[in-house]
Structure formats: structure tokens, C-alpha cells
């Protein structure tokens, strides 16, 4: 065992990158849940985004187009969920599960020819001056564009929910869809838009996994990250700022356990690999005391009768 092989600066820097997929998925789901919809299909949308992004990046040679493709793939899949829950009025939990099962199957079908292929590399931004600051430079300013896109999304979602009219309407729909309908807001349209945004974010997160984090395509490569993202929204009490905190925490745990594995700690690898899931459960236990922040219409089916 050689703990001194762990470089704290690289560790912190890689936390930034490791937290990006989960951050993207969670911020998308946050919007979905704030609109009163519980989409348990994050895992399915993420892995679909992972393969769509991967295939398109390989096909075009451009990671940027790949990321767009991942987002579109996730959004398209999420529209199936929207169809089920908003049009066919199906149960949110069951539909979300269906989406995940379907997405897992779809992705492995699409990914058949891509096992073992290397994707085009995503360049790191070399930010002049800032990147050269000792300590902070490598930790904060030496990442690829998507890391910053994710952070910008969090900031954007935070500002939208807090200050904008659209954010107010979104919250209103999630709090009380009957009242929102009575005031003339298009509950179903707002929710479909939120679901599609959530799908695009999850897809983006998935594409980041397959194009940057791993980077290759393997079946089932999301390995529960989508579910952890769902837990993260609960952890964050449906607040954007705390999603960021939570994502760093989980990014930290997964990076740390990988580093410990690499350092050859005398704990079997499997027990280290368990740790993110166990910690998720622990965090859920600690955070579940405060349920009051959950949107009041979360998971309820809306039908504008008469």
C-alpha cells in the first residue's frame, strides 16, 4: 500500500471531472421534479446519451457534435416518457422504470459495433494565465469545456428558478397543477418541456462518460450513476446549489476509492467499489428527515377534467 502515490492536486482536479456526468444528470432531473414529474428513467436516458454521443462522435470525428448527439438522444428517449405520463397518464414510477429498462436494451443494441473503439479525444481547454496559477490552476482551470458547461447549467438553473418568470411558472406547476391549470398555464406543455430538458441533460452526462471519463463504450457503463443522480436531487432538497455540492461529494468518493484501489489498499476491490452506493444510502438516510421541500405535486398524475 502506498498512499503517498495519491497526488492531492490531481485528486481534486479529477473530482471536478468525475462529478460532471452526475451533475449534469442531476440538474436535469431537478428541473423535471420541480415541475412535478418524477422520472426514474435517468439511468436509461444517460446510457442512451452515452451511446448516441459516442457513436456520433466516432462517426463525425467531432466530440462537440457527439455531445450534441448525446443530448438529443437523451431528450428523444425522454419524450417517450413524456408520452406515457403526460398523454397516456401512466404511473410515473412504472413509466420511469420502463424507460430505464428500455434504454438499457436500446443502448446495447445501438452499441454493438462500438465495443473496443476509441472515441476522438475531447481537448482540454488551456486557459491562459488562470491555468498557470499554482494549485488553483490545475484544479479549477485545466478541464475540458463540458466541465464548465455543467457548472454554467447549474448557475443558469439556479438563476432561472429564483428570478425568472419561467422559473416561477415551473415551480407553480410542480406545486399545484390544478391551480396552475385554473390560472391558464399549460401544465402538460410545461412538463413535457421539463422532461425533455431533463432527458437532454442526462444524455449529455452519459456522453461525457463515454467520451471523456472512460473513454470507450461498454454495455451498462453508467452502472447506477443515473440512480445516484436521482438520490442527489433528494439530497439537494430540490435546490440547484446543493446539487453541485452533492455531485462533488459523490465525485470525491468515487475518485478516492479508485485512487485507493490503485494505491493497493488491503481491502478487496469489490468493497471499495461498493462505497459510492453505500454512501448514497447513508446520505439518503441523513437527508430524508426533511421532506418538506419536495414539490407538492411530485409524481401525481394530471388530467384536466372539465
Amino acid at each position, binding site marked *: 500500500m502506498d498512499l503517498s502515490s495519491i497526488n492531492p492536486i490531481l485528486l481534486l482536479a479529477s473530482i471536478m471531472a468525475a462529478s460532471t456526468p452526475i451533475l449534469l444528470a442531476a440538474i436535469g432531473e431537478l428541473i423535471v421534479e420541480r415541475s412535478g414529474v418524477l422520472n426514474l428513467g435517468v439511468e436509461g436516458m444517460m446510457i442512451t446519451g452515452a451511446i448516441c454521443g459516442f457513436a456520433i462522435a466516432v462517426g463525425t470525428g467531432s466530440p462537440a457534435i457527439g455531445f450534441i448527439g448525446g443530448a438529443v438522444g437523451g431528450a428523444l428517449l425522454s419524450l417517450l416518457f413524456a408520452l*406515457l405520463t403526460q398523454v397516456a*397518464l401512466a404511473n410515473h414510477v412504472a*413509466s420511469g422504470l420502463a424507460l430505464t429498462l428500455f434504454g438499457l436494451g436500446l443502448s446495447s443494441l445501438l452499441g454493438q459495433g462500438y465495443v473496443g473503439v476509441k472515441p476522438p479525444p475531447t481537448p482540454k481547454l488551456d486557459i491562459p494565465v488562470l491555468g498557470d496559477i499554482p494549485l488553483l490552476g490545475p484544479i479549477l482551470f485545466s478541464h475540458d469545456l463540458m466541465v464548465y458547461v455543467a457548472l454554467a447549467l447549474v448557475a443558469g438553473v439556479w438563476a432561472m428558478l429564483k428570478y425568472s418568470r419561467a422559473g416561477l411558472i415551473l415551480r407553480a406547476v410542480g406545486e399545484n397543477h390544478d391551480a396552475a391549470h385554473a390560472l391558464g398555464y399549460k401544465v402538460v406543455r410545461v412538463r413535457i418541456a421539463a422532461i425533455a430538458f431533463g432527458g437532454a441533460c442526462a444524455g449529455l452526462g452519459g456522453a461525457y462518460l463515454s467520451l471523456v471519463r472512460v473513454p470507450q463504450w461498454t454495455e451498462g457503463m453508467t452502472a447506477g450513476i443515473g440512480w445516484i443522480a436521482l438520490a442527489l436531487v433528494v439530497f439537494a432538497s430540490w435546490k440547484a446549489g446543493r446539487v453541485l455540492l452533492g455531485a462533488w461529494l459523490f465525485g470525491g468518493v468515487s475518485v478516492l476509492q479508485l485512487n485507493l484501489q490503485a494505491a493497493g489498499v488491503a481491502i*478487496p476491490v*469489490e*468493497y471499495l467499489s461498493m462505497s459510492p452506493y453505500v454512501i448514497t444510502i447513508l446520505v439518503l438516510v441523513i437527508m430524508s428527515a426533511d421532506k418538506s421541500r419536495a414539490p407538492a405535486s411530485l409524481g401525481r398524475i394530471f388530467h384536466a377534467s372539465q
Partner: protein
Amino acid sequence: MKLQLEKRPQPSRRWIYLSPLLAVVITMLVGGALFAALGKNPVEAIATIFWEPLFGEFAFYYRPQLLVKGAPLILIAIGLSLGFRAGIWNIGAEGQYIIGALSGAGVALAFYPLDAWFVFPLMALAGALGGWAWGMIPAVLKLRFGTNEILVSLMLVYVAEQLLAAMALGPMKNPDGMGFPGSRNLQDYPAAHNADLITGSGLHWGVVAALVAVIAAYILLGRHMLGYQIRLSGEAPRAARFAGVKPGLLTLFCLGTSGALAGLAGMFEVSGPAGQVSIDFNVGYGFTAIIVAFLGRLHPVGIALAGLLMALTYIGGEIAQGNLGLPAAAIQMFQGMLLFFLLAVDVLTNYRLRLLRRPEAA
């Protein structure tokens, strides 16, 4: 003109039965289109999946497989359906299945090579207890801390998978296995082997357990107060509390029972068809059982039929893989699609479609 959904005064009896069938038909059509897109003959592919295992040349081999694959699905789905009816969402059956298998196999390996009648019953008990205990974790956390059982039960699947790997590579590794991962093969240990009761029939103890579970669930839901309380809690939680139902006890019962049944299924699998604890022992029965439960309309008899149908797609899918080169993932997707269409068609049970014409000037 415009289509509009209109709530029915009461659920349509006709559509309760028709919607699963319609979902299967739509899935076949869309699935066929999918296979065509993959460059396969759609009719041949569908026929291979649904016809070949039952009436094809090698049906004598495949038919018993129907029971072998259907039993764990039905056993797990029966347990899940109780919770789903009550609005308690255990989606971690895969984990409970693994832990049940590990517990059962653990007992067998502990007694190896003792040849005694009680080894197998003890294994079954251990399997059920293991699954039960794994299912109780989300139940107790929900009760004590209000933790969401969906997320916890699911997280525990990943924990169980890692535990399975640790066991297959560590404590349960076959000491005579020349370093290969995986435990001793229980098929070679008569006291622990869950063999066919009638050779070649596919009828092992797991099938018997599944049958018992279907009958027991049928009686529980239709005739017993506990089953009534389960249904009431799912339909109207406030009314259930008013009626005197204790939601906590119900949570413990539903998650515990579904855990125990999933654990049993895992134990029957590891001591029978699979034979040994290995890294890739679990094949997703715990998740497919969710589809089975919904497709069976959360009704015991429906679940039995749906379980057999789903087993058919597994077997047919394998044949199609061999004969037509259809990718395994296509079958997985096919199963996901089935649940999708079912949920979509289900709207017709409670709503009716109405074609609205523009209001005519009176």
C-alpha cells in the same frame, strides 16, 4: 377534430384483460419492424421467438426451459406485485435474488460434503432469510428515517453485485477449482442439488415454489383482510389509515415478502440451473420480473401467464440469436418495449378515447 381522453366512471373490465394482449400485439409489430431494420426477416424472427420454443423441431428441449426460466420470474414478480399494489416500490429484487443465492449456497458450502436430508431445506430457509433481510434494509430505513425505498433498494443491487463478485473470487471460491473464479458446482453435491423432480421436465423445486406463491397470493389478495389492506393502501392511502391499516407494518410485510421470494428464487437458481456462485450469476431476472408483474396486471394468475410469456421471449431470443444472428440486446429491448406499450395502452382501462368534432353552430 381532436382526440380527447375522458375518464370512465369506473375501470373498464374489458380493457383490464384486453390491454396486455394488445400490448403484446403492438410489441410484436414494432419489434418486427425493429428486426427488419436490423436486416432480419421480421416474420421469421417473431416466429422464431414465439413459435419455435413451443412447437418447433426442438420443442422437447425448450418446453422444460420455459419452466426453468419462468419460475424465478414468477416467484419474484408475485412478491413485487404485493408491494406495487400497496404503492411500495421494491425495485431491488435483483439484489435480493443475489443475496438469497449467496445465503443458500453459503449453507451448502458450509455443509459440504455432508450428505444429509436437511441440507436442502436449510438452504431454502437461508435463501429466503437472506433475501428477506436484504429487503428489510429499505423497509426499516423507510420506516425509521422516511428514506425512499426505490432508491435504497436499487442501490443495494449494486452493493449485492459487488458482494457476489467478492464471494465468487474470495470466500466461496472452489478450493479445488485450480484458481478459476466461482464456487463448487452444487449440481455435483446431491444433498444440495435442486434437481428436476421428474428428469428432463424442468420441474424443480423452484417451479413448485412459484406455483405455491401464485396460489397463496391469489388467496391473500382475494379473500384475506391483509390482501384487502394491501389493495386499499395502494388505491387510497388515507382511506387505508382511516380503516386502521398500519402503513409501517405493511411496508415491512411487502418488502420482506418480496425479498424472501426473490431470495428463494436466487437460491433455487444457484443450486439448480446455474449450479454455482459466479461473477455473472445474475442475469437480470429481478428487473425483468418488474415487467412480468405489470404485464400480469399485478394479478397472481396474470403474473403466472406473463412469466411464462417472458420466459418464452428469453428462450426464443436465444434461438434467434443462434439461428438468425439476432443480437441479445434486441431481446432486452423487446422486453422493455412490452412494458412501454402496456403502460401506454393501459390508459384505456380508466379513460375512453373520444373523437371531438368542432362545435357545430346550433
